[in-house]
């Protein structure tokens, strides 16, 4: 289950990299309903453990808007709104609500008027911000337990439960793919003629996979290759070759969608590749194994 979501509000990073301009939008982390339910469950478990006489538990997002609420059996009805108010106040000020109760108690009575423009401002102990890696992603408010003190103790336990939560981004929202294992004989057989180890089950890559793996083998020079989307990560195993990268291809033809070939290239950088070398050729960069000392074997991960 995933509890925290990345709210991607733009493609800033790519733009940033190319233009160096200031950030206009940013990523932010938000609590999911699953996460809110888990916070409530942890709080209810604690309420049961300490034999609290009741409790309303509210979880709001970082804007103070209610995400989930539960009112335990026998808890007085007004506690639901008080719990929402505590949570909202805590989220909008990113502080425990006890801060406000204490300030007012200690003589700063005028603080009660903060309520004016803020809907449901509730300066009562029992609201605690929910933090994820140092950022406030929401808040929890508890009302209706034995005392304001117990309200807050329960809220703290609920807030702590967030430490053990996962983020949606870990698998980008879908189930992880199975592990791939290719035994050595099969790998060796692929290198003998050159072949695709992973990714030959369709023309394009698998919808939820962004890589292919090739066991490449060359007996002679190839053509200039340009991959519109694929970055090649090459590890040389056997033989040697002269690799030319960059430059301006001459007579470019499209051989498949997003795949281009040319017989020659003007300019570019020349490198001599030997076993053990690693080369990373970003997408869009022309590359050409111009001279090959056969057999030339190299392992390629194509990343899209």
């Amino acid at each position, binding site marked *: 289950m995933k509890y925290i979501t990345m709210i991607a509000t733009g493609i800033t990073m790519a733009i940033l990299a190319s233009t160096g301009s200031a950030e206009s939008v940013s990523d932010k982390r938000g609590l999911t*309903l699953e996460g809110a*339910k888990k916070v409530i469950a942890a709080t209810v478990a604690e309420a049961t453990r300490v034999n609290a006489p009741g409790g309303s538990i509210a979880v709001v997002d970082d804007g103070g*808007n209610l995400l*989930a*609420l539960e009112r*335990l059996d026998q808890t007085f009805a*007004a506690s639901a*709104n008080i719990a929402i108010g505590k949570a909202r106040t805590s989220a909008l000020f990113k502080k425990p609500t006890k801060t406000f109760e204490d300030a007012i108690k200690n003589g700063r009575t005028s603080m009660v008027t903060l309520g004016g423009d803020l809907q449901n401002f509730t300066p009562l102990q029992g609201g605690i911000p929910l933090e994820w890696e140092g950022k406030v992603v929401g808040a929890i408010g508890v009302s209706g337990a034995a005392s304001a003190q117990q309200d807050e103790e329960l809220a703290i336990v609920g807030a702590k439960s967030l430490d053990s939560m996962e983020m949606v981004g870990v698998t980008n929202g879908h189930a992880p793919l199975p592990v791939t294992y290719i035994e050595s004989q099969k790998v060796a057989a692929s290198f003998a003629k050159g072949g695709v180890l992973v990714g030959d089950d369709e023309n394009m890559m698998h919808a939820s996979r962004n890589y292919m793996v090739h066991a490449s083998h060359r007996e002679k020079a190839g053509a200039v290759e340009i991959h519109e989307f694929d970055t090649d990560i090459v590890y040389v195993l056997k033989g040697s070759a002269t690799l030319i990268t960059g430059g301006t291809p001459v007579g470019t033809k499209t051989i498949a969608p997003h795949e281009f070939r040319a017989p020659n290239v003007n300019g570019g950088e020349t490198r001599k590749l030997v076993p053990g070398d690693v080369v990373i050729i970003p997408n869009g960069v022309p590359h050409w194994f111009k001279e090959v000392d056969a057999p030339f074997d190299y392992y390629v991960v194509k990343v899209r």
Partner: protein
Amino acid sequence: MTTQMFLCVTLSMTMLAGTADAQLVEKTALTLDGAKKIAAAAEAKAKAEGARVVIAVVDESGSLLLLERLDDTQVASVNVGIDKARTAAIYRRPSKVFEDQVKNGRVSALALHGAVALQGGVPVTVNGKVIGAIGVSGETPSQDEDIAIAGAAIAISFTKP
């Protein structure tokens, strides 16, 4: 026991029948567990339809028992969902009734105290008695109500402890 007030989980009808002039009555009340079952049924339907909604469950008096805002639901639906549920609970009828009245020319239905004339609130009924209500907000009025009905319908399976 006779002088104490019961506000919980037992049936009144049999008692009432026998003692017409009793001072107290037992009522069936919705528990948090029941509210969770209602919300779960509504949530299942919403997710099956890809609906982004707030689901609010209130008790017989219209006070909030449980609320869920599904991921990516507009935040304004929190209060609208609670309002619809309260309307259905305290008036003991679907909130659509009032929306229809307004539509059909009875504009004064907008002045009903504590009510919103918006489709999507549905009473939860056990043995013919309203014990609470569910309110749904976020999608179209009829889809909101369909999801609320799916939640309220689960009450037919409710049992007492």
